[in-house]
């Protein structure tokens, strides 16, 4: 029993059995009357004490984090038991609003102090030149939590693209700005805001991306023949053309091996062309020659936000390479090769629109936040080629971008928890992150049937001939597992 619950229980026992009588002259109450009243009071206290495990009353407070940062602090009352009460949870996302993320609400309900933050790039995915731009708000959030009396351990949590952001932050906090300024990077990070960052004591990645740049690279549409005229498409390389295997009715696809090979080769080549063009422009800017501006310049990348091969073709990136822990809907935990139950999610409708596919960037924002190289020796070392397979994605030069989770995680040594969602496509990518992690204490698990947003995929269950409710309460399963990991004594 937690200290708080224990003390309340002792108090109740003391009051019922040995309440002192301060005035013996007063008539005593009959025990038959007294006991129900005291039982009622005791029951109330039991309810209050139990809130420390689940359903704590949570006070939510607005916090100004400065620098355009906005936070919502959630403090449960009572705080969780001893293993929880000294832990503060922080999360943000590079561009989505996370103030009401389930990370904060669910973990606060389990007894943790949580701080969810938005930053100056919330709602502006194309506005940052690298994750260094987010560092001040993360730093402010960590410092804020540390300033709360009783909070001595800070855990940062990254969900989706928040994963690479938090891996970057922790890597730089542990290894200084040099971690994102090596010669292997396409462009060194701006170290202005990266000195003396307070590190976290643990890192949790939930259905994490491999990085902003990898996300963009795998969206680069090779069907675009002319950067100035993205509407002119090469049908031979068009993943949304039914002749290549795409079904416009279901946004699903079954591509041939030949198409996959030529598509990915062309995707890597266009990606390389985009990088080389941007590097040329950067060189002009840096050298002050033929430049329009001395600091940066616009760099519009057409067709780079919708054409990802594995989204409609669910045979790709389908499963883990090794047996991993699966948190099953029936409450059991099993080790097995994990297969995604996701449904196809092709984006034919938005692939040719400006809003759905264009990245209106600058040279520095493209190179710093959205560019990563594939391996150079394409088609020469088959195992190293850029490729998308049922149980792998290969041939990415992760170290060329400071946004890459697999390279940043190599510099992170604090305890690491990775949890993937079983109805999405990060099962294998996050396994890659795990294999690169330097942490001695690292854990990987998958939540059966959970979507990228943690909720149960009812349509997935139905598609498999299962009851729509088959996957149960995936949110509870996920955060109970996170709670167990956090409260297991490692912090």
């Amino acid at each position, binding site marked *: 029993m937690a200290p708080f619950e224990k003390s309340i229980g002792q108090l109740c026992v003391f009051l019922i059995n040995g309440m002192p009588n301060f005035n013996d002259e007063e008539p005593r109450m009959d025990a038959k009357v007294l006991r129900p009243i005291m039982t009622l*009071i005791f029951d109330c206290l039991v309810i209050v004490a139990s809130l420390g495990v689940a359903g704590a009353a949570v006070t939510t407070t607005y916090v100004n984090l400065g620098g355009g940062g906005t936070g919502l602090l959630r403090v449960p009352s009572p705080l969780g038991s001893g293993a929880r009460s000294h832990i503060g949870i922080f999360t943000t996302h590079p561009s989505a609003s996370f103030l009401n993320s389930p990370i904060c609400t669910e973990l606060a309900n389990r007894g943790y102090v949580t701080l969810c933050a938005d930053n100056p790039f919330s709602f502006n995915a194309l506005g940052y030149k690298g994750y260094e731009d987010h560092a001040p708000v993360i730093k402010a959030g960590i410092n804020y939590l540390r300033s709360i009396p009783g909070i001595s351990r800070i855990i940062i949590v990254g969900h989706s693209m928040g994963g690479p952001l938090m891996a970057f932050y922790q890597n730089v906090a542990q290894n200084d700005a040099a971690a994102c300024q090596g010669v292997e990077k396409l462009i060194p990070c701006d170290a202005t805001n990266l000195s003396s960052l307070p590190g976290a004591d643990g890192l949790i990645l939930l259905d994490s991306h491999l990085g902003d740049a990898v996300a963009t690279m795998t969206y680069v549409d090779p069907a675009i023949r002319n950067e100035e005229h993205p509407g002119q498409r090469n049908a031979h390389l068009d993943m949304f053309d039914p002749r290549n295997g795409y079904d416009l009715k279901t946004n699903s696809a079954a591509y041939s091996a030949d198409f996959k090979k030529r598509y990915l080769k062309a995707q890597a080549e266009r990606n390389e062309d985009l990088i080389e063009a941007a590097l040329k422009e950067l060189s002009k800017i840096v050298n002050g020659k033929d430049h329009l501006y001395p600091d940066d310049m*616009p760099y519009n990348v057409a067709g780079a936000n919708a054409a990802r091969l594995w989204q409609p073709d669910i045979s790709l990136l389908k499963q883990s390479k090794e047996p991993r822990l699966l948190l099953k809907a029936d409450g059991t935990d099993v080790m097995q090769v994990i297969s995604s139950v996701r449904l196809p999610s092709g984006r034919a409708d938005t692939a040719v629109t400006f809003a759905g596919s264009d990245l209106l960037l600058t040279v520095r924002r493209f190179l710093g936040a959205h560019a990563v190289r594939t391996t150079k020796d394409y088609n020469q070392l088959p195992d190293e080629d850029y490729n998308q397979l049922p149980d792998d994605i290969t041939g990415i030069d992760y170290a060329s971008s400071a946004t890459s989770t697999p390279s940043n995680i190599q510099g992170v040594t604090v305890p690491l928890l990775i949890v993937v969602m079983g109805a999405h496509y990060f099962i294998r990518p996050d396994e890659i992150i795990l294999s690169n992690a330097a942490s001695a204490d690292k854990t990987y698990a998958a939540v059966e049937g959970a979507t990228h947003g943690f909720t149960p995929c009812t349509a997935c269950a139905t598609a498999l001939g299962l009851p729509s409710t088959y996957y149960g309460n995936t949110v509870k399963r996920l955060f109970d597992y996170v709670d167990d990991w956090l409260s297991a004594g490692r912090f």
Partner: protein
Amino acid sequence: MSAKMVLLWATVFGLLFALIASPSSAQDFPTYHQLGPAKATLWRPPTSETPHIAIVVVHRTANVLNAPFCSELSNRGFVLLCMNTRFDNNESQVIFEQMALDVKAGINFLRQNQSGLTPGITAVILLGYSGGGPTMSFYQAVAEAGVGFCQDPQKLTQCDSSGPTSLVGLPPADGIVFGDAHPGNPVIGMLRSNNPAVHNEKHPENLRPRLNPYDPANGYNPDGLSTYSDAFKKRYFEGQSDRLNKLIAEAQDIQFRIAQGVYPYPDNAPFVIGRSTASKLFVLDTSILHSTEKPQKLLKNDGTIDDTQIVESVRLPDPTIKQTDETFNGGARLLTVKSFLSTNAIRSTNSIDGIDWCSSNNSVVCNVREISVPVLFTAMGAHYFIRDTEIHYENAASLDKDFIVIAGLLHSLTPCNACPGGPYNNSLKNFYDLIRDWINARF
């Protein structure tokens, strides 16, 4: 055990329970509220009083959740709802007309006591500071005049009257306070800020000498106050209009080709404009837009109001905008065709006094002509919106309207210690007190 003792202990337990289980019963402010795509903080006075007047603070893209107004005016007895719009942080995506939906959500939140924290609100006042001025004036104009106002075909963009972004049925506010409101992004952010010396949009680095504001031969002084001839100013202001009119034509041509299905994209397009944000001639030469035209009220540092004088701006010149103009991050705009036309475009023949005010929805002058509720216009005495605000005041249809310049305050709401005529150390307090008194006298 005695009955009294049981009662005593039950009371103790009850208090303990309340303390543990309901720590939020004594609510700490500000509280945070998600109003659809908009964010909001709710502020209340520190006392236990129940205010009946609420103020909504909104900008366009800026984070005002913790703006000084929120604490200063709640400390003066009002409920404050400080809101970030759906375009928080993202200038390139702003569709100006849609922000009215966020203001509407704020007004309904307060009036309908959706949070349970704003009982008894009988009056809602809009506070538009700087870029919040166009936002609030547009909202109130549509609320009072109906969507026909914002669908006028004379305007470069129109609002929606159906679907999820329909502006039909906006609940009007009870009054508006304008704080150093600019006349609209198209005017201040583009028309008067673009460098008309650019003659090829693809090469903004090449400038025509006769229109170059940073050429000493034209009057530029890199060390202080620049002085331009009347002839240069005339061709500069006309040149700014010419450049913006050409950009509008280019954007409309793209829109036409999109509509015809002959543009690479079916929905929108990038629209990048170099040297378009910094070249305000009146920042270099403070003799331009330097004063009111008529005697107006000046709230002086000692708290008294002098209404007998032409009010002069005490602002200082800033020649460093030359460097800003040259950069991409400071001097260029990364927009789309839609956000350009909706938020940054207006027709004109001259950037100072030849503006077709009603060619944009983002125009305070056009909007205040439709507003009948009480309005207070304030301008900061150490900035350059004094004459613009006087024009807003002159155009306002409201019978109950007032215009006061706050002596020596910068646009950043700090006293200008380097400006002549100081000290201005009391001006900020005077400003907040003025707003308090103006509201309390009416609502």
